[in-house]
């Protein structure tokens, strides 16, 4: 096939990207989680967002733009020849909420990390995904010195729907973090509508 801009010159099909998100409150372990499961060295990339400011007089005619830079955690897992999984850690700071819409566009699902010392910090993430209809699971990160909760205690504390899986996880451990992703994927399969 000739180079036509939509196929790799080596003739291999271009892989399909599958996107999952890793969310949670400030310091919940998002960066650690993405780094643990990623096959590439932990990468942080900065996305520059341009927001046209609203309500300003535009006398210059060039428009009044403001740019903000957001750091994103970013990881990759090659699933097979056809699919690559990309993981994005969502920005923890509240002022970057507007970034979440763009990030969750086309995302298959999310892991919400809950820090047992501050369970309530993950409420905004839970609300966001519930409202958006993005399926998610809760991974309870058991920090040293944090209170040890059982999954059902966490469910009650977070007022979670009985259908939402809860796993205990150590974001620093590759196996533990990877199995949280497996749980998420099984959940995604279970909530996916069956084709007739």
């Amino acid at each position: 096939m000739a180079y036509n801009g939509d196929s790799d010159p080596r003739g291999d099909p271009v892989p399909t990207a599958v996107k999952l998100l890793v969310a949670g409150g400030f310091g919940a372990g998002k960066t650690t989680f993405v780094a643990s499961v990623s096959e590439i060295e932990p990468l942080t990339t900065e996305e520059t967002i341009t927001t046209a400011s609203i309500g300003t007089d535009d006398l210059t005619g060039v428009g009044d733009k403001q740019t903000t830079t957001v750091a994103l955690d970013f990881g990759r897992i090659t699933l097979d020849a056809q699919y690559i999984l990309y993981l994005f850690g969502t920005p923890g700071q509240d002022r970057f909420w507007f970034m979440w819409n763009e990030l969750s566009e086309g995302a298959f699902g999310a892991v919400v990390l809950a820090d047992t010392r501050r369970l309530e910090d993950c409420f905004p993430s839970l609300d966001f995904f519930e409202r958006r209809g993005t399926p998610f699971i809760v991974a309870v990160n058991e920090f040293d010195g944090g209170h040890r909760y059982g999954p059902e205690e966490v469910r009650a504390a977070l007022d979670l729907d009985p259908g939402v899986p809860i796993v205990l996880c150590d974001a620093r451990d590759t196996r533990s973090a990877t199995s949280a992703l497996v749980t998420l994927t099984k959940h995604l399969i279970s909530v996916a509508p069956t084709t007739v």
Partner: protein
Amino acid sequence: MADSAERPLLDDDAGPLVRPYMASGGRTAPTASLDLLTLVWATGRLGPTQLEAELGEVLLLCREPISVAEVAAHLRLPAMVVKVLLSDLLDLGAVGLLSPDPAVDTTDRTVLEALLNGLQRRL
């Protein structure tokens, strides 16, 4: 490295010698629509040495299909700057790109099964 003078953006020790926005010639808006997950790859029509240093650096990273986010992270440049550089490469025909389908079916079982199998193999 022989051509180190032409590789100002990747000097890890000294940090970037050129301010990021200089790398894109002061331009701040890419001409092509690129997402962080847009995959880009070198078409082979132009080699890195046929290009300005910054564009050559980007092209080198695109030997295998790679996402915009990865290019940005490797070059330690903001994604917007990388998007500008990549759209230049696209205009030159040096790279091909495939953007994620905004209408992707996130409940596609074939994809979900591939995801599950790929993850379970790593356990």
